[in-house]
């Protein structure tokens, strides 16, 4: 039993059924930011040097641009994003009543496009979709994550947790093996973090661009030589939801910078 497992198990007795053995206690949750060196932190902290801010600015322009056969802009329905979008990303993925399942922020943006703007869906990882989701999520910077609180989401959070605990791929490793049991250690010299999803979409220096949480999850899956789920697959949404609920209380950082 590792140190963290022992603590989590003890807490389980103290706080009731919310956490399973091995899961990270609320007080011990740490953003990937706290694992970074001073240069990368400085790059994230200063909006003039944070490359993610260019995407946020693009998103701001798209917010007021009319599009689709409805010829409407996001702003025509939602007004000033600084008020209407504050805190929204901190509760995504959120339950959609019509679809009876959780949808991610990217999926919500595309639902607005098809239902209200009569515009085609933006492809996953396209510059416009990343820009819009970065702009919307940026309005939640500093807001504590509450995603997963809605009781209707419980079966999906549980599904995500099962996937997080499931070993997979040719290397036969689960997310929990690295991000619960071995954070603070080094994989081939690079620090392993708790895998907290606080800063997405974020700028990864390795990618040289902004990327979504799903892109990150797919690369962890490819890393263990598993067949990655397709963008938007229910399994990826469930994992995303579990990760957000696992980060409950941590402040949003979008657009974060990571090595």
């Amino acid at each position, binding site marked *: 039993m590792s140190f963290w497992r022992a603590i989590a198990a003890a807490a389980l007795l103290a706080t009731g059924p919310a956490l399973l053995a091995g899961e990270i206690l609320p007080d011990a949750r740490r953003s990937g930011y706290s694992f970074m060196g001073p240069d990368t932190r400085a790059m994230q902290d200063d909006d003039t040097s944070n490359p993610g801010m260019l995407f946020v600015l693009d998103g701001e322009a798209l917010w007021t641009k009319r599009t689709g056969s409805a010829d409407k802009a996001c702003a025509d329905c939602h007004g000033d994003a600084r008020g209407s979008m504050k805190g929204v990303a901190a509760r995504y993925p959120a339950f959609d009543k019509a679809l009876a399942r959780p949808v991610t922020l990217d999926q919500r943006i595309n639902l607005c496009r098809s239902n209200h703007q009569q515009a085609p869906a933006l492809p996953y990882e396209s510059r416009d979709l990343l820009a819009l989701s970065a702009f919307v999520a940026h309005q939640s910077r500093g807001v504590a994550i509450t995603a997963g609180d809605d009781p209707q989401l419980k079966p999906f959070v549980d599904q995500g947790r099962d996937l997080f605990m499931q070993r997979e791929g*040719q*290397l*036969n*490793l689960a997310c929990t093996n690295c991000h619960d049991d071995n954070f603070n250690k080094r994989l081939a*010299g690079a620090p392993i973090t708790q895998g907290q999803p606080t800063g997405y979409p974020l700028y990864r220096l390795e990618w040289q661009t902004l990327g979504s949480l799903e892109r990150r999850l797919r690369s962890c899956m490819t890393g263990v*030589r*598993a*067949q990655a789920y397709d963008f938007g697959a229910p399994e990826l949404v469930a994992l995303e939801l579990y990760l957000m609920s696992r980060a409950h209380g941590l402040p949003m950082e979008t657009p974060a910078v990571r090595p």
Partner: protein
Amino acid sequence: MARALVHIAALIAASVAGAANADELVPYNIVSDGIAESLTGAPGDAARGRALVLARTTTCILCHSGPFPETRFQGDLAPDLSGAGNRWTVSQLRLRLVDAARFNPETIMPSYYRTDHLVRVGRNFAGKPILSAAEIEDIVAFLATLRD
């Protein structure tokens, strides 16, 4: 031991059936806590084994460190490999690489010569062990030379 025999029987049955994974795996015999005989029938090459351990695609130094002064990129999720040849016999090292989960079912160390009981293996890797029999032998030969 009974489990080992079942395992070997399953491997043989699979190779008779000509299943895709079986082409890749040669049957082996587990004796106490090791595999005494070379998987290829020949001794491995320690120099090639060293190069393999250092290659990122082999994955060892993602988790392990060792007496490899030339590389900075070593992991610390697993014991340092220095002295492994003192701590373990060749036979034990061979089984450790083939299927570390036999020593410790909870281990994070992958089973390098096993294709069953895996979930969602990527298309390019499905049915193939992580390492070939010859690669295992080269690495075993190298680990045996690590005597502090």
